[in-house]
């Protein structure tokens, strides 16, 4: 699938995962690559962009037997942005689907 097209939707997927619980970077990367066919490491630039926009925030957490991990978490603004973009995307996707399904030659 078109990479540019996928990138925009990827942001939304990251937010939807983080809405459920806080995650560390690799966790997000692996979660997405099990569902969507993306190249390794694609999410890291997205995470940094979302953080610089104030949609995500990070904190370090000690892990047993390893270096501390950087966790990502949705900010209040992030939740707001997610709800809005989610509704917009679902509405858009529904319309596109209706258009594409109706391809009978008449």
């Amino acid at each position: 699938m078109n990479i540019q097209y996928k990138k925009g939707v990827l942001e939304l997927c990251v937010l939807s995962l983080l809405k459920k619980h806080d995650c560390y970077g690799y966790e997000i990367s692996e979660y997405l690559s099990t569902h969507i066919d993306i190249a390794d490491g694609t999410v890291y630039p997205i995470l940094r962009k979302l953080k610089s926009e104030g949609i995500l925030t990070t904190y370090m957490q000690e892990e047993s037997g390893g270096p501390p991990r950087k966790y990502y978490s949705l900010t209040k603004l992030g939740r707001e942005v997610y709800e809005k973009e989610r509704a917009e995307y679902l509405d858009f996707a529904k319309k596109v689907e209706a258009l594409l399904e109706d391809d009978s030659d008449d």
Partner: protein
Amino acid sequence: MTKNEFLSKLADELRNNNVSDADEIISEYEQHFAFKMADGFSEEEIAAKLGDPAAVAAQFESDADSRKSGGGGRKAITVIGLCFIDIFAGAFFALLFAWELVMIAFSVCSAVVSVCLFVNISPWAIIPPMPPLPGVVFGVSMASLSVLSVTGSIYFAALIRQLMRSYGRFHQNSIAIASGKAVLPSLSVYPRLPAKANRRIRNVAVFALVLFTAFIVLGAIISIISSGALEFWHAWGWFGYAG
């Protein structure tokens, strides 16, 4: 390419592209290597899957990109402009608050009048004299009017609150645009109450309006019949003389 080769190349590319906090980015990729290696992949495999360090680095926005519209001058102009708008918006909000106070006062007054009519008392002679039956009927209509006014002030208070939030967001966004920061989604001007609360307020308001109209008409009819005059207010001497 080994892990160290990949990371040092990535660090060089990030620095070339003028990306800030490169260390943070590098540590994220270090973790990626650590996790993948724990899963049994070799350093070469992992690096190959990540792709060319230059291509990876190109995906990170440089500082120049994210602050392309900077410039302190533009921000200063925006702030001055916002101050002027604030003067008008402030007056507008003062007006809205005043109107909210008027509505609350009106609700309280209608409630007091309705109680006076029910128990048939007239403190400082504010209630015109009338027999108990029309008094009770008018009392019901005044009570409905009070309820109607209360629902009105509740909705209006929600409207003021939402307007202030929306205006605050506009403020924030204007400054964010001028200083090249991320813009937040704008907020709607109308209050979005939960559907259930919305329905309830509307039902109560409609019910109160119907009750108010019905009982004021009923009260007039009863007054006309019991006073025996079409202009019952003259018959009861409301304006200082008996007709």
